[in-house]
């Protein structure tokens, strides 16, 4: 059974959610900014420089904290026929049910100051959880999701799923 078939056995929610995160410019080391040409992703919010990582950007990247180091990892898969699940988000229940049972995975923290969904920028205290999957193209990160709380649904125009927050309840 090929990977694409295997993933089709899971009811993957491919609906876009948390389509961007923002991190203060000062939190990213200069060498990382230069290496990945992040200058074009810098935005000013009322005078404060932040770097936005958005789902529509190419290359699609997310910052990830692994082994105490901050690195940028390709975010999800935009190919429906590839070896990885389509989208940038996976339900953590599906991961527990063995979505990536045949892959080498690692749970990571995606550091962020803000998240964005359906036009709402919301505060992120420490970060959100992600899972890095080793594929033949290298590591790929997905944002882990769970059913949204009533509060989060109201904030984000009834989004059914939300990211898994680190030490934060929304």
């Amino acid at each position, binding site marked *: 059974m090929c990977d694409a078939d295997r993933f089709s056995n899971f009811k993957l929610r491919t609906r876009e959610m948390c389509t961007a995160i923002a991190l203060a410019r000062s939190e990213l080391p200069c060498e990382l900014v230069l290496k990945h040409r992040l200058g074009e992703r810098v935005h000013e919010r009322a005078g*404060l420089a932040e770097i936005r990582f958005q789902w529509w950007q190419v290359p699609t990247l997310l910052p990830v904290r692994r082994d105490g180091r901050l690195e940028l990892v390709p975010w999800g898969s935009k190919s429906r026929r590839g070896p990885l699940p389509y989208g940038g988000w996976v339900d953590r229940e599906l991961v527990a049910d063995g979505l990536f049972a045949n892959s080498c995975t690692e749970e990571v923290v995606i550091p962020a100051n803000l998240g964005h969904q359906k036009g709402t920028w919301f505060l992120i205290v420490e970060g959100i959880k992600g899972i890095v999957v080793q594929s033949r193209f290298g590591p790929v990160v997905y944002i882990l999701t769970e059913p949204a709380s*009533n*509060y989060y649904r109201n904030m984000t125009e009834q989004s059914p799923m939300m990211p898994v927050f680190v030490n934060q309840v929304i």
Partner: protein
Amino acid sequence: MTALVGFGDADSFYSSAEAVRRPWLAGLPVGVLGNQGACVIARSYPMKKFGVKVGEPIWDAKKKCPDGIYVKRDFRWYETLSRRMLAEVSTFSPRVEYYSIDEFFWEGHIPGDHTPQQTAEAVRAHIQRTTGLPMTVAYARTRTLAKLFADTAKPFGAVAVEDSAHEVELLANIPVTEIAGIARRSAIKLEPHGIRTCLDLRNASGLLVQRLLTVTGHDIWRELNGYRATPIRTARTPHKMLARGGSLAGRVTDAFTLYGWLVRNVERLIEELQFHEVRPSTLMVSVSYFEDNSAAGVVHLSVPSDRFDILLDAAKHGLRQAWRSGRTATHMHLIASGLRRGPWQQSLFDPPDVKLEALARVKRDINELYGRWKVRSAATLFANDWYEDPANEHEVCDIRGKFCF
């Protein structure tokens, strides 16, 4: 030493409080969302500039301010900062009134080597240095004047108004509706008499004001004229009523869910009754409907009580009166009045129930020891989501000792 009334009001308190623990938020457009995450309950000055108003739904606010940052409210943190401000203000005066979560009045004795203006600036600087919060400070002859003048100096202002000429100059530009206690309805009564500004009200006849706005309005009139009608209250006056309730976290159409909220509110009300050591003789249940007016049911207790079974029975009767079948409920409030203070005399209608009293005691002890709502009625299980969120454990009404919200 000149005796003036001091008044301090933290600027955009909830959003400033968020910036205290996350300094990078300072200067950004921040909106603090209410209990349901649907409405903006406070916003920073940069967000105000976009026209976002208090009470505005988030879906409208984010259209006006697409770069706005929306934050979930945290009343436990706001209380911590509120009490820190209270303690710091108290270093300037022995008589401080905890008026609301972000407002304080105090007897403003001015040290001999300072002018009132210097003292106002010193208080403002001290509060910012010790709490990290921006506060507008005003000194004036009365509390009503101090509060009005603080509003003219916001944000982060410091103003002292001692002489009548300066008062006149400022009051002439303040509409009467800016006075706490004069709502739009009162303003309509004043309008035919040419009373539109605070100065008009000050210059009006006291007799006329009393006729139009009763004693409360007359007290405001006295305060505007520099006579103190309300003293600085260093302790909260005993409550005449206690209420618990609020939004139902959405629209409720089924009776079981509504009953669950009723039980939750009864348990919250009992906590409050027991804290203040009072028992109500009347209980009112008020329900607001989406497509209809509010409805209420009133139940008189034969004997004042704070027992769960007795209050729940009464509340059920109240809800039956307030229930509108087929309608969508959005808010519920339980209001306990006719509060009696102990010692309570037993009567024929109030037989002691040893088992129920022991049960109530165990429930209270466990919750005090292990946290609020660790033991609660099973009728509230429908709202596990609500109870699992630690932010819902502490609401603004749970901050005790202040006079208003």
